[in-house]
């Protein structure tokens, strides 16, 4: 059974009359799973087989190869299946509307089915997800995960339809989304991944696909703990300003609260392997008198109804300004990382809309934040889009010719954060 540990980083001192309590909670899972506690898993790979996947031809060929690598990573007895997606969804393996336990035989059969895939038709991602949901429903009680690969925009469905599908499927399975090439829409895949608690990334070159699929499937197979929720209790009279995952990526969780009782809500965190994530919690409480201490929040990791770990968020009111004005490093850092992600997305949108002044300002601020926080990965991606004159002041010039893949990589990976490092302030 995995062990979870938590750590809470905050400045619990508030000025008199102060009501906003911030804390960074680090949750670490050792990912240790005994034979018996390994959750029963189910896996589906959803491959876009629309016409565009055949041009260039190697795109579909790379998808076949990548899926085949992913299939090899699936543990014995994990229920799995393959879906081919066009304007309709088709279960290509198995074809009888169920999932099959992985074995040498079924893996080989699945690869044969892969070879028969043809690239023709449109793109209706909602229908692919709906079929995945239906197939997962045939293996109740399992921890369900899908990989979705597409190279284009959702053409045959309205946004509303897709939103409806996502809210219907939320919590039923987790879905990692991958866009290959540059003809897909970052915001669309992000919406799907975020709705289904998965990751989103760009695969710029078809030949990189196999390596990425292997990592995804190995990570999925390494998940030792099924559905885990972050449970937040806050006292009567308090309100939750936000709950946000801030590392390794930024994910807003505030709107995903599932109320447990008047004072407690659960936020979904899906499955956990051997990993560590940070959460930024912001709670507004009723101010108390100087010297009074209160519990502003209690964070628990719950699996089913079992509590795995706990962290306390406290508030102490003081008239000592030396205490109350200290800004917690972790809180400041992640507030900056969230702003960084927002600046990148707003900058890219502005650039696309031809508002170059806003784009320059936002991306300049992003460069400044990335430099301050030592977020080298994001800095590198930013440099693909802007020429950095002075990172410290955020002075940048927009590049004239930006490759679509550079802009999409920056957009997709804008939510990747770094932890507080020695160089960070």
């Amino acid at each position, binding site marked *: 059974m995995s062990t979870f540990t938590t750590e809470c980083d905050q400045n619990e001192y508030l000025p008199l009359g102060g009501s906003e309590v911030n804390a960074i909670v680090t949750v670490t899972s050792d990912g240790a799973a005994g034979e018996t506690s390994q959750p029963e898993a189910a896996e589906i790979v959803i491959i876009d087989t629309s016409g565009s996947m055949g041009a260039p031809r190697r795109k579909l060929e790379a998808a076949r190869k990548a899926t085949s690598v992913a299939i090899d990573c699936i543990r014995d007895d994990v229920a799995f299946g393959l879906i081919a997606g066009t304007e309709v969804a088709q279960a290509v393996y198995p074809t009888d509307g169920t999932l099959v336990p992985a074995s040498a035989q079924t893996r080989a059969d699945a690869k044969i089915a892969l070879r028969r895939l043809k690239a023709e038709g449109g793109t209706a991602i909602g229908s692919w997800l709906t079929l995945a949901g239906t197939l997962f429903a045939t293996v109740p009680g399992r921890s369900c995960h899908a990989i979705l690969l597409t190279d284009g925009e959702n053409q045959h469905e309205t946004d509303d339809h897709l939103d409806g599908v996502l809210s219907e499927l939320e919590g039923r399975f987790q879905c990692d989304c991958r866009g290959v090439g540059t003809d897909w829409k970052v915001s669309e895949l992000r919406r799907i991944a975020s709705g289904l608690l998965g990751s989103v990334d760009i695969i710029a070159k078809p030949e990189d696909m196999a390596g990425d699929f292997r990592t995804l499937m190995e990570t999925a197979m390494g998940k030792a703990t099924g559905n885990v929720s972050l449970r937040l209790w806050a*006292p009567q*009279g308090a309100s939750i300003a936000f709950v946000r995952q801030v590392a390794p990526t930024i994910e807003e969780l505030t709107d995903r609260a599932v109320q447990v009782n008047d004072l407690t809500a659960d936020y979904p965190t899906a499955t956990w392997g051997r990993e560590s994530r940070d959460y930024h919690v912001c709670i507004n409480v009723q101010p108390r008198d100087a010297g009074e201490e209160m*519990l502003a929040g209690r964070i628990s990791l719950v699996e089913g109804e079992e509590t795995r770990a706990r962290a306390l968020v406290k*508030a102490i009111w003081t008239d000592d300004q030396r205490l109350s004005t200290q800004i917690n490093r972790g809180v400041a850092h992640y507030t900056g990382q969230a702003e960084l992600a927002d600046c990148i997305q707003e900058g890219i949108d502005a650039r696309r809309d031809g508002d170059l002044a806003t784009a320059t300002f936002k991306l300049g601020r992003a460069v400044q934040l990335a430099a301050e926080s030592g977020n080298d990965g994001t800095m590198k991606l930013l440099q693909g889009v802007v020429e950095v004159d002075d990172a410290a002041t955020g002075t940048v010039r927009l590049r004239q010719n930006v490759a679509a893949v550079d802009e999409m990589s920056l957009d997709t990976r804008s939510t990747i954060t770094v932890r507080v490092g020695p160089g960070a302030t």
Partner: protein
Amino acid sequence: VSTEDVDVNAEDVNVRTQAGPSCPSCGAPLQAEDRFCERCGARVDDEGSTEAAETRVELDLTIAAAVSDQGLHHHRNEDSFHLAVTGERNVAVVVCDGISSASAGNVAARNAAQAAGVVLDKSVADPDKDASQAILDAIQAAVDAVIQVEWTTRVKRVDPSCTLVSAVCRGGEITVGWVGDSRAYWFDREEAHQLTVDDSFAEEGIAKGLLTPEQAAKSPFLHSITNWVGPDAPERPPRTVTLRPERPGRLVLCTDGLWNYAPSASELGGLIDALPRGAAPAAVARALADMANDRGGHDNITVAVIDIDP
């Protein structure tokens, strides 16, 4: 107002019997191992500061004084008061009693007394402001303050509420306004009067001839109040009364934690008369609170005493 006695709108009121430890801040029941209250988050173990809350608050302003005492049976003080002396002898006073069958009665009483006090202080300083209107404004401010107690809607309990009695003493005139069963009395060398008439089923019963005062005093409805300050209060205007005393005397405002032990004006007056002649308001207030504790201290006790010299 004590837990067992309030029975207004019986189906709404969750009458709680106090059993086991409870949070000193909000009254929620506590488990022995709790470090923080599971409802309001207040620190409740020994290291916390809420535990060390004063069991008695005293304010001595020479010509006026107030004492609020937790009593001997309650785990916290749900009474609250505001007292201010301005100019020569202008006094603004508010006494509130949190209804303990409701959530956060202590917060309701504290916020009500504070809000009403702010309005009264301002009005007392304004010679053009009519005292009765000032008191009505102050009570409205108290109602607004209690409605804003945020946890009113979060749990299915009775909304926070309290009683309120207040007075403005200015230029030889005393104006008293009240909601509920906290009282005001006037004592001078010849007279002892109760200035207020409780908003209670007992008083209404007497007024309608349904009960004799003796029956009312024994009635289980003695403490069932018919008007209070809170979001769910009946829409009845607060009552006011104005007095122009001819002789020096004392105005006394108190909660039922005191008058339970000396219900009639003459009994209370007798207790004050037994004190040394010329006792200061602070001495009188202390003596009355101590008397209530000596006689059982069943409820929180708050008493304000103001010397009037017209």
